[in-house]
């Protein structure tokens, strides 16, 4: 009983002690393993967050400059002889007048020492082509200003903008620059007079696409995206929910139903470009729907998100406790009534989450939409679901391809807008889910 070592069969007092020492020895190892495991988890999250941070900083760093643009203040005298010689103020005449000439005249006035054709061309190149259209819109809006001198802020050429943002290096050899010394001197003079400033870039949010970067905006693409998503939502949500309800509640358990289920699950994994080909072949060639329209884009994206919504909705329906359904049936509800009044409302949070995840996926899809023609260069903002349009991801893709340096920052800015859309949609998903959540 009093033997010191743990050898041999000891009495009752020794045996519990031995177990405790073994347990205590193993504790250190166990806690160390737990700490390691926790460290792995935190490490994984940290890496994920770092990458996310990297992504956001790189995009924002390259894109935030696009939200300001260089503008030049011009005092344009709206010569009635140039705009409307007859004096009748007819729209067609007013619309076709040579506003560009007026802009050039103003520039010549501001820099009277500029002579020679090539020099003057360089001078005119400081201001965007869009200045003429800006003047035209002003006159059409209020023809009474003809004959007066108006002071307008017109967008500067994109090269000037790049200089102002530091992307064109003044110290580089003149031959290697897009702007030569003379142009830079004129720009400096304008800055001194306070006629060249960087202001908020409203054009980016109010204009459609353009070949000139200073006139390019995302409104067309954003509207196209919004219209396409609306069509997708209106089609895929009811169809997906109805299909899930059918498969869960009413489908008989036979081979045919199994076939449907296998196909739905497979469709969720089909590469999205295949849906684009399908859309091209069926919707555009066979049904003759207009090419590049949000309607067709919406139909293609519906096909793509339908499997996601069906699978998420089925999971949501399965998660409703059967006691609720039994209670409803026990009171004499028909299967449809039990479904609509009891099961469906309780499954709604899961269904909505699945739908919004599907929508967020559709928001970023480019490949299928390229196939149905949304890769075209479309300047006008689409008015309805039948007008040709493009979507944000495609717009980003097209701008990324463009050679002008000013498009680099605009591409990143468009990506920021797209990410903003995405964050909004996910926030909506969380809010909706919280609102519909019920406890049972």
């Amino acid at each position: 009983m009093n033997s010191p070592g743990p050898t041999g069969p000891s009495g009752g007092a020794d045996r519990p002690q031995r177990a405790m020492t073994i347990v205590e020895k193993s504790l250190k190892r166990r806690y160390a393993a737990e700490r390691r495991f926790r460290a792995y988890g935190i490490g994984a999250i940290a890496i994920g967050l770092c990458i996310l941070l990297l992504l956001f900083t790189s995009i924002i760093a390259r894109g935030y400059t696009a939200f300001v643009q260089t503008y030049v203040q011009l005092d344009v005298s709206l010569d009635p002889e140039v705009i409307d010689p007859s004096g009748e103020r007819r729209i067609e005449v007013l619309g076709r007048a040579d506003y560009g000439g007026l802009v050039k005249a103003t520039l010549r006035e501001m820099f009277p020492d500029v002579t020679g054709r090539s020099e003057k061309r360089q001078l005119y190149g400081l201001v965007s082509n869009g200045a003429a259209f800006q003047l035209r819109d002003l006159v059409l809006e209020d023809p009474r200003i003809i004959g007066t001198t108006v002071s307008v802020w017109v967008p500067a050429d994109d090269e000037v903008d790049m200089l102002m943002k530091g992307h064109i290096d003044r110290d580089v050899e003149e031959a290697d620059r897009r702007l030569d010394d003379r142009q830079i001197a004129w720009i400096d003079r304008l800055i001194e007079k306070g006629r060249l400033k960087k202001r908020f870039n409203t054009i980016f949010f109010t204009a459609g696409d353009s070949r000139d970067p200073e006139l390019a905006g995302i409104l067309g693409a954003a509207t196209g995206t919004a219209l396409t998503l609306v069509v997708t939502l209106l089609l895929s949500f009811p169809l997906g929910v109805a299909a899930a309800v059918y498969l869960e509640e009413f489908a008989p358990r036979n081979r045919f139903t199994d076939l449907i289920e296998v196909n739905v699950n497979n469709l969720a994994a089909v590469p999205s470009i295949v849906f684009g080909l399908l859309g091209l072949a069926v919707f555009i060639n066979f049904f003759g729907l207009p090419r590049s329209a949000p309607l067709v884009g919406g139909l293609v994206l519906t096909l793509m998100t339908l499997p996601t919504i069906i699978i998420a909705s089925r999971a949501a329906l399965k998660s409703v406790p059967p006691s609720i359904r039994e209670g409803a049936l026990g009171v004499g509800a028909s299967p449809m009534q039990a479904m609509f009044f009891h099961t469906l409302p309780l499954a709604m949070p899961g269904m909505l989450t699945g739908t919004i995840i599907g929508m967020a996926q559709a928001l970023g899809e480019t490949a299928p939409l390229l196939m149905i023609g949304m890769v075209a260069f479309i300047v006008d903002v689409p008015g309805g679901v039948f007008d040709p349009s493009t979507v944000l991801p495609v717009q980003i893709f097209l701008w990324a391809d463009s050679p002008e340096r000013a498009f680099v920052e605009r591409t990143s800015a468009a990506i920021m807008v797209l990410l903003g859309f995405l964050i909004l949609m996910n926030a909506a998903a969380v809010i909706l889910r919280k609102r519909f959540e019920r406890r049972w």
Partner: protein
Amino acid sequence: MESSNAILSAVAQQAVTAPVEPRVGAVSSAIDREDRSTVGTVTVDDPRMRCIDVNVYYGDKHAVKDVTLDIANNEVIAIIGPSGCGKSTFLRCLNRMNDTIEGCRVTGQILMEGEDVNSSRIDVVPLRARVGMVFQKPNPFPKTIFENIAFGARIHGLARTKAELEEVVVTSLEKAGLWEEVKDRLDQPGTSLSGGQQQRLCIARTIAVSPEVILMDEPCSALDPIATAKIEDLIDELRQNYSIVIVTHSMQQAARVSQRTAYFHLGDLIEVGETNDVFTNPHHPLTEDYITGRFG
């Protein structure tokens, strides 16, 4: 004399109700333990529901075997037996809830006012309004107390206007003995009540659709003794207007609330009779074993 089952089958052909003589040999020791035919009077005069040769199969498993039993008007009949003996399964046949179970097959006739409710031709939706059910675990809808009760009345068209619905809700809650406790919180969710209150809410929900028979599947097994006592009092009151079939694990409860008791054993209906008789003077050795606690 032919076996009682054969007589009843013949009788059912002509839809004539006739009582059957009780088994000869009324002493339990005279009956062999392995004998699974029913002891006691299964029929009553003018039954509310009549079950003839009801069998239930879950796939290959034969869960309820050849059960013939009558449910009388305005009575409480308790169904007792060890776990897995088919009590709940048999109960669920009466309102066709077994239809919701995959692979479950019910054969036999279940007559209610001459009509066989087990046939595929009848509509189960109105049947479930006539034969209501209270489940083992209280399952109020996750909606307001008002909506819990109004739902049934509304879908069957028993009440359409707001005033009618309110009347139904108040009456049902009063009959279920819950009105005083919830009258000023009808817009609270049904799940916010205590267990006993929830079960009474489920009973009120069942009453709201004006059933003729109420099936109760171990309604008090999830409740404390005080809530249980309240519900047993309620069952006694409800007996005046409804027939109640209650499945229970507690023999004391069966003795307290029921007029007749039926003992099930591994799918067979072993004995049926007046509650007092069954508990004080069981005729079948299996019944005696169960009641005296030799197994349960």
